[in-house]
């Protein structure tokens, strides 16, 4: 295993130290393991908290700031944060108007956020959790854990963050996050695996001409292993899966072609060109887009495509100013 790290056990803390040094506008608490906006808590503002395993940077810590998250709590690599952390973040951003938790749908995340919400309620903080489950690669059923939360998390954090920033009420902020989740779908593809520092070896082995279709964001294998194919074919597989689940024809959409961490930006732009072409050919209009590394799986090569069917209100909230280390415009 070759990593730019000091000690396997310190990677998360060292990264937080770097975040603290690089972004004086954030309050990084190494003890509690939370990253908080320096102006939090703001009286009367609904707090927006997210968190999850580390290794997905810039998600979530890189999305803390004006117009997006109020706090993030990074767990160990690919491991959900613990309730204490989530509670600390919740308390730190509580301005009396309640706090929304954006939770990606993984058993660990859901259980830890649930425990934290109970603890927060003991301190009279009203918490509304919003669970993101946008990954169409997972066959959903009432007997399973359901779909994973992946790329749409960025959409939900940005859009709910904008509403919270503009004074939205607790139910509305949670509501718009849910609406984004319901209108969004994602599908990911891996060209290589990645190595969790503590594990020391890749989570799976892929041959020189094999790729994994339908991966999540935790370095886990996907639904299907297939032969290496072209970017256009990969994009077609992803968008077809999304379109089958949520027909896109006739919609105005926000599209993200997200790098998993190890794929050059040049290739992501090539994939984006293929995606825009596919969407135009299937009757959808792309009106907003993101191309780059936003929700990563350490150094995994590959990409994830996320699509959100916009409404005029969602577009307006997407366009609202945001100023975070990972996403910035309009200010």
């Amino acid at each position, binding site marked *: 295993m070759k990593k730019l790290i000091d000690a396997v056990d310190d990677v998360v803390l060292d990264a937080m130290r770097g975040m603290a040094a690089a972004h004086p506008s954030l309050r990084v608490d190494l003890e509690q393991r939370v990253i908080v906006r320096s102006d939090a808590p703001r009286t009367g503002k609904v707090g927006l908290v997210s968190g999850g395993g580390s290794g997905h940077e810039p998600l979530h810590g890189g999305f803390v700031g004006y117009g997006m998250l109020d706090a993030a709590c990074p767990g160990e690599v690919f491991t959900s944060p613990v309730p204490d952390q989530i509670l600390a973040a919740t308390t730190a951003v509580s301005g009396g108007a309640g706090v929304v938790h954006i939770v990606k749908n993984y058993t660990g995340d859901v259980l830890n956020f649930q425990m934290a919400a109970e603890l927060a309620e003991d301190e009279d903080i009203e918490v509304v959790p919003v669970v993101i489950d946008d990954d169409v690669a997972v066959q959903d059923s009432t*007997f399973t854990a359901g779909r994973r939360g992946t790329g749409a998390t960025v959409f939900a954090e940005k859009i709910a963050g904008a509403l919270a920033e503009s004074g939205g009420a607790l139910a509305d902020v949670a509501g718009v996050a849910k609406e984004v989740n319901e209108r969004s779908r994602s599908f990911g593809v891996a060209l290589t695996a990645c190595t969790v520092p503590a594990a020391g070896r890749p989570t799976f082995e892929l041959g020189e001409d094999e790729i994994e279709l339908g991966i999540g964001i935790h370095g886990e294998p996907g639904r299907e292993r297939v032969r290496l194919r072209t970017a256009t074919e990969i994009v077609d597989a992803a968008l077809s899966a999304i379109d089958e689940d949520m027909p896109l024809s006739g919609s105005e959409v926000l599209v993200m072609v997200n790098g998993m961490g190890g794929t050059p930006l040049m290739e992501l732009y090539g994939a984006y060109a293929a995606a825009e072409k596919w969407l135009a050919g299937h009757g959808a209009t792309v009106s907003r887009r993101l191309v780059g590394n936003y929700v990563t799986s350490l150094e995994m090569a590959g990409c994830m495509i996320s699509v959100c069917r916009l409404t005029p209100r969602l577009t307006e909230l997407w366009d609202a100013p945001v100023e975070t280390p990972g996403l910035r415009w309009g200010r």
Partner: protein
Amino acid sequence: MDTYAWMVRFAELVSADAERLTRLDSAIGDGDHGSNLDRGMRAAAEALSADLPPGKVLMTAGRTLVSKTGGASGPLYGTALRRAGKALGDASEVGAAELGAALRAALEGVQELGKAEEGDKTMVDALAPAVTAYEAAAGEGLATAARAALDAAEKGAEATVPLQARKGRASYLGPRSVGHQDPGAASTVLLFRALAETAASS
């Protein structure tokens, strides 16, 4: 029953087997179960002391697991041990019957929180038969019952191999989760191995 020795031994076994647990989790999960539980149980072992009452030991271990582990296993194991500890109450001595009730409470806690049934390919597949086997043998004394529980946990963990996961991270793999042992079931075997060893030596 010396619950302190049980927890310390469990921490040791997890530590020794962390790599194997992580490897199992790499196959159908995200490759962190060994390091998760190891981190949690190290912290728990440190937080414990031999002079705590038996129930308090388990409750402290459980609370520490919740606070330090993360992932699915943190809340699940944490709840299991907290519920078990709660069931033991303030008693200063724990016999075979009391421990049986505690184990049953642990199982209920896990199922309440995680909503997994037997056959979903989770730790419940080791925990549930272990608790049942323990209860059936409880009349023969703690050591025998613990030994029976371990055997059942082992069989239960082994039996997860051909199953398709319906809960936890492995469920995302659908049919590809078949053919691998569930890591949480494997670590549950260690919980009962620690119990059997502790019970045998006391």
